[in-house]
């Protein structure tokens, strides 16, 4: 039995968690506007 049998499932779980986080962000409307934030970054104020 090598560590791979534990490490691989954990790695997959991590990936699932990341994907779930992304899905949550999209459903919350955070990705509704992908153009304006790119422009806002150029505004150098406080």
């Amino acid at each position, binding site marked *: 039995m090598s560590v791979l049998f534990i490490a691989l499932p954990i790695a997959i779980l991590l990936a699932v968690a990341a994907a779930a986080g992304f*899905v949550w962000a999209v459903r919350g409307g955070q990705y509704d*506007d992908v153009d304006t934030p790119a*422009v806002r970054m150029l505004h150098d104020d406080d």
Partner: protein
Amino acid sequence: MSGGATAPSSRDEPPSRETASAKVSMLCTHCDLPVPKGLVRAGEENQFCCQGCRVAYEVIHECGLDAFYRFRDDDPSDLQPARWSGRRFDEFDDPVFHDLYVSSGETFHSVDLFLEGVHCRACVWLIEKLPLVVDGVVEAKLNLRRSIVHLRWAADRVSLSAIARKLDRLGYTPHPKQGGTEQKLHLKEQRKQFIRIAIAGACAGNVMLISIALYLGMFSGMYHAHAQLLRWAAMGIGLVSLTWPGNLFFRGAWAAIKTRTSHMDLPIALGLSVGGVAGIVNTVLARGEIYWDSLTVLVFLLLVGRWIQFRQQRRADDAVQLLYSLTPRRAKRLSSSGSTNELESDEPWLEVPVEALNIDDLVLVLPGETIPADGFIVTGHTAVDLSLLTGESDPVDVSAGSEVLAGTMNLSAQFRLRVSATGQSTRVGHLMNLVETASLEKTPVVQLADRIGGYFVATVILLALLNLGIWWYIEPSLMIDHTISLLIVACPCALGLATPLAVAVAIGRAARRHVLVRGGEALEQMAKPGMIWLDKTGTLTTGQMSLVQWIGDTTVQQLVHALEKDSTHPIGMAICRGLEEELFLDSADEGRPIDFGSNSPGRLRVSQVRNSPLGGIEGVVESSRVVIGSARFLSSCGIEAGEDSLSEMLELNRQGLTAVLIAVDGQVVAIAACGDPLRTGSKEAVTALKNRGWSVGILSGDHTEVVRRIANHVGVDEAWALGSVTPEQKVEHVRRMQENGPVVMVGDGVNDSAALAAADVGIAVHEGAEVSLATAPVYLARAGLAPIVDLERASRRTMNVIYTNFAVSIGYNLLAVGLAMGGLISPLVAAILMPISSLTVVTLTLATPTFSTGARNQA
């Protein structure tokens, strides 16, 4: 321009340049466009080209937001003067409005408003600084793509109408954002796309990691148990990718089979399903090759290509939404017991929402207001501006009994209106419906990639059968494996990226040259010559009346200018502007501009000014009685024009100009002729288009003789120059020519909007109505017609890039199939070939110039 430019010491000073003839010209501080000489105010640091710009600058400067001009300079994309409507926006405080559009919290309300005039990135910065400008506004977030600002404000500190007025002063006229189910659907679809891409990407990344381990194991050996673990893990993740994000392709292929249409999903689904089934079998049976890494990467890349395409799609705006922006929201209803006597100046009226109007209601319309509903004039004599429907802003006389239309502007006097149609039943309401149906009824262009999808899959299946045959003959045990690998590597990855990439790059480059294209179909349609219809007023011509000729005594020019200074009549304004140019020229030797400001000592005293709907103006200027107008108006003032003058007027009219007589102290002393000049470059653009094989025509609401004259000047065949065309007829002409091939329509006004929607490519011109911008897939952010020629050239180049990409992709596929037939394909080889083919397509697309290389960075 020769000479050097004096460097400004602070940002606020406009740069002044010396011209060859020593005239001093200024640039507007706000919009960077030239200031008409007559508006130059001597001794002031900042000069402005119009009241809108002056007002906007004042607001910006008061709040200390001058950094806006720094941002604007970094991105001079679409220079336009600020438009200030001057409306009061009282309806924004109406409870009905709040019910419809405002979300109310306990202390804070929020609303989404559509803003006109959002054209540049600096606008984002300025609008989001609104909390600094208006006390009480908590947050303002702008969506640049849709021009919609999300506002949150404290209801007890400021009213929405005050916020709206401030936005208007800054140059961004606000309108309520109409919900629109289409927009909601688009948003939902976009979210689904993001999630699909994310899952596909996660699966592809993880499967690739697993595959690296398996490939290394191929060379140096691997424990069987580990290999099994990895293969089962790869299968698990691969199946997730195929069944969730990849599902799209199977559904698309199934729909294509059921309807017997050709679609790119067919070969993709074939490759994916063969790969999937073979992968499952081989993993369970612990034998043979698996291709999960190629399959998952394929799914991911193709979804990215789909998303690029999706972003380019335009949505047709609701007809209702367009209508709302054109007609007023409120009307002044009179009590129905109002008699048909002459108007009393303080007749009681009630301000009601325009939705509350009924047929046969009596409505009062003041001068300067937009007419709220279709109807007939009961009492009153005025002039109206029909440019909404004809494109011509010449005032039209109307009186009791005349029909007037919703959305047109009342110019000179108030009148009583009896309503005959409201809302969507009005002429303009029907027109907006026509805009919507015209854009929906257009036959959709079938993508080139989809068209060859059917042939592609048929060819692949044939080759697979051939391969089966060959290997059955040579070595039957390898037959299945080699055929499976063939079907997988034949899957078109680069092909799915070829078109969206080329279109996206072309659109980006076009945007940098100030041609905004929404949708790849526009590029495809413009690549082959067809029919192009041009609107006249505002498109071929500048759309503004200007003084063309002055016949007679020039010493009276100062008097005339003083009288016309505050006129809002198009001819009056044209004379005023034209004289400012001439008078300024006369004093150029003195080296300083004439100060026309109201407090200047040089200004002439004007009194007893009377504007008449009969077509004229009279007044007393420094003790001289000046009368300007038509011959009919002059005789009504007791002045008879002589034979010479009258025949001059006739001659000028024959030339298509509008002429007015000028009489001082009872004597006709001069004639001023006004006309609408051609935009510079119109003639060259038409010639260039005709040389490239396009048929060019003119569709205009103006009189046929005027249109014919313009056609002669520009080089359009008289047979193709059509005048007195209604907006509905424009659509018919577009549709009629569509039988012969693609039709392009170029226009600027509301009266062009339905034709723009119906045409294969609608092009809205600089400074056009917002409605045109919403319905046309192409918007020229520079003045003039030259961008159309550029766009046509770019479209051809883009189509060439697409064809080249196709050739390269198919070349790779053939190579891969050849290798498969030779038994040389393994998962490793497939995994290398696919990204190389995609990279090649990407590199080719970016390296090929879309517009001429030399001018790539031209503003």
